């Protein structure tokens, strides 16, 4: 694993927060994201956004990340299924926020520990993952990619970061019902 060549001058969280950003910051972030996509295509380097939850480290591929928000804006959702902790506004659209601790079987924790919401894209769907801490983006070379453990994971990044399969998270198999 190597750190990004250009240190991300921007805390993704700060950039995602509505209100307290300026254009410069956004543009910088867009440039970074754009480059991340570019790099993905050319040399197979994958960019991930690691985060902490329930004392463990996980990550999502930066390609899937739509926005990172402060969990203060998270509201509980009446009638939501277990595993859905609430909803939050992502830009102009409310999105469901999943309780990763529950989905990953990490046990119940304090709601106040969840500081950030990582909003990810799964096709047309947008949804949030409530996490404790978001870390800096990391580039992973193809040689460092390892097969995933059992569960909703795509692959493993060093040192032991399971990269989530966002399309498998929080989806109930309709056939079962």
């Amino acid at each position, binding site marked *: 694993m190597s750190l990004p060549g250009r240190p991300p001058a921007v805390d993704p969280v700060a950039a995602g927060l509505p209100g307290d950003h300026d254009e410069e910051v956004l543009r910088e972030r867009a440039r970074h994201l754009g480059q991340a996509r570019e790099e993905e295509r050319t040399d197979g380097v994958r960019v991930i956004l690691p985060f902490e939850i329930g004392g463990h480290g996980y990550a999502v591929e930066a390609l899937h990340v739509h926005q990172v928000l402060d969990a203060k804006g998270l509201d509980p959702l009446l009638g939501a299924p277990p595993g859905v902790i609430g909803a939050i506004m992502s830009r*102009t659209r409310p999105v469901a926020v999943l309780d990763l601790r529950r989905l990953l079987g990490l046990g119940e924790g304090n709601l106040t520990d969840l500081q950030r919401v990582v909003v990810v894209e799964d096709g047309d769907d947008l949804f949030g993952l409530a996490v404790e801490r978001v870390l800096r983006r990391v580039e992973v070379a193809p040689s460092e990619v390892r097969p995933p453990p059992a569960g909703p994971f795509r692959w493993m990044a060093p040192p032991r970061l399971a990269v989530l399969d966002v399309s498998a998270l929080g989806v109930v198999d309709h056939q079962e019902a």
Partner: protein
Amino acid sequence: MPDMVEQVWPIYEAETRDQIQVLAAGIMELEAAAAPDSVVGLRRVAHSLKGSAAALGLNQIEQVAHAVEDVLALADGVHRSGGAVQAMLGAVRAIGEALSATPRGHIDELAEVLARLGAVMGRPAGRPPERGEVVAVPDGVLEALAATVAALCTADEAARSGLAARARTAADHLASTLSGRAAERAGGLARAAAELEGPGADVPRAIARAGAELVALRAELARTPAPGRSGEGPTPESTSPPATPRDERLVRVQAARLDTVANDVDQLVVGVSRRERRSREVQRLEKALRETLRLLERGVAECQLHDDPRARPLTDGLERLRALGLQLGRHAREGRRDSEQERLLAHGLRGALQSLRMVPAGTGLAALRPAVRELAAQLGKDVALRITGGELRLDRRVLEELKSPLLHLVRNALDHGIETPALRRAAGKPEQAVLEIRVEARGDRVLLSVRDDGAGLSPDRLRAAAVQRGLARPDEVGRLSDAEAARLAFRPGLSTAAQVTAVSGRGVGLDVVAETVRRLGGDVDVTFEVGRGTTFVMEVPLTVSGATGLLFRAAGGTGLLPVDAVERVLLVEPADLTSFGGQAAVVVDGEAVPFTSMAQALGAGDPPAPRGPLVALLVAAGGQRVAFAVDELLGAHAISVSPLGRRLASARHVAGATVLDDGRVVAVLQPALLVGGRRLTGGTGEPARARIIVADDSLSTRMTVTHLLEVAGYTVLPVADGEAALALARQAGCDLVVSDVQMPRLDGLGLLRRLKADPGLASVPVILVTSLDAPEDRAAGLEAGADGYLVKRDVQRGRLLELVRQLLPA
């Protein structure tokens, strides 16, 4: 077809103009550079040009586009030769001119254009128009039909019936080849004739109707120019000016962009009301300031400080404060006036945007034509698709959502409803089946019906399937009327399994159709006539947004219900509660209405504390009413519902979320599923039903089990964990408990031990349902006193019902 062309024309024209521009630019580049990729792209454009022209019955454009596509497909760079490029450019130009021609889509030098393209290929270009696309009706057919109708006026019943059958066949055939109003008239004639076929018809009236329809049909046909003839030159009638004036400028906007704007406007509306609230707050502060000032002045007066020179700064300060207060008041008032004005503007904007999103239903339905054609061919069936009411406008988002349900219903009709031509012949029906999609307005709602004239749904087959799949007992399905049995088709367990054929197996089941429609705030129903056909009717709102929601607090959270689903708000005293058919009920207008807490209905567990009066919302949907107790009513809010995607799919009673003025995100509930999800068998005067508590932290398992048991006639109280189950059992009592083993707060084994230790509940049988099937788990369960132990996968196989029946005394 003309109706259809009218509606879709502006869109078609804009799209086609774009395409021919791309095509022309690409063709010119062909000559210069030879990029093989670009040819593929151009061929695709030509192909889609051909397709959209064909869909609208614009034969001449279709032929030319087809020929251009053929030329582009020529190998060895022939398509790059100067001759080919010239011929294709000429063809593209001709298509462009045809867009402004009268009649629409008419190409003056069709033969010439095709000849030039043909010369490049070394074979004739174009193709004759397909059968069925010709709308012209030979005069002879109409005259023969008229003669038959005239002959219907006879006292000889047998002869009349025979003539009526002939008239019906002829009219049906006409209806399927025609379109628009003419098709409707022919259909009406066929129906009138069909009435005369059987005995007991109101003969004079039916004959009069048949006659009237025939006259109207003639008038329609006289008005409609036949494209087959118009090719030779415009007929007098077809020179009418196009519906949209040439100079009306159209702008094409990507639908997604419109949605984004709509979302932003929604945010704006929310923002404006937030500002309005702030202005009110400032006004309140100004008032408080004035009162404080009065207090100070009184103090100054009482201490007689006015004449004291030492108090000058104090009195001056007061004077200044008063002036500032006045200014503040003025600003607050102005601010409020401004925001009121902005609110009006924002609402106007929202309304305008909404109307922009309204599109004719026909634009969405047009896509069904090719699907029907293709599918009918695949299945070897002869089907005419008739669309009426396509000019009705509804929210593009509603139409978009209805796309897959409609496609499913159409597939379903073709696959299961409509018989093969041989079977139809044997049943004395015309070989060509008619599939009718009808769009009708009902105030602010719209009815979409899909009707086939096939064999009709079989309620007995559905009853058998329901029993076979363990969804119901034979005596229960026996009690259902045929109409109720037909509705079994919308039940999850049933339809998915029934869809194993290659055709309907893809995509969605009828249960998903029902769910989609209900998510839109609508409802779906099915009716049938044995041997005559099946009709599915979807009733949906014209738009999805702009609704008002009632905000309430329940189960420790806040939620919204669309206000039109809430019939009224009830204040229920504990004494008002009765029991009806084994469940809590409240009497409204002399009718016992099921009563439950919102928390329980949402599976949040906590039963209501029946201390003092309860606020309950009387919710009506799909012909059923249920009163839901809530903790508090918080008022009405303008809402625009955003769906929350697949992560909420298992919580079917949640329609989506909306943002309140203060920025809070709140769930909007789905009345139909809230009400319908409770009981399905219905019926009155049934014996008291056994109450079963179902405890499971997985909503989907909980719902599956609840569903299974409810269908079997039990009253089910679902809860999310052992703690809630125990509380409910103690408070409300129950006859049996079905519990998951692994649950938060109190797990299944803990619940079991606590129940068995409670003298009042020790005799209640407990079934543990678990995903674990290790012998030691089973032993632990049985040792703790479980009366039954089931692995989750056995639940579906009917084992759960078996066990429940064993454990519950009949």
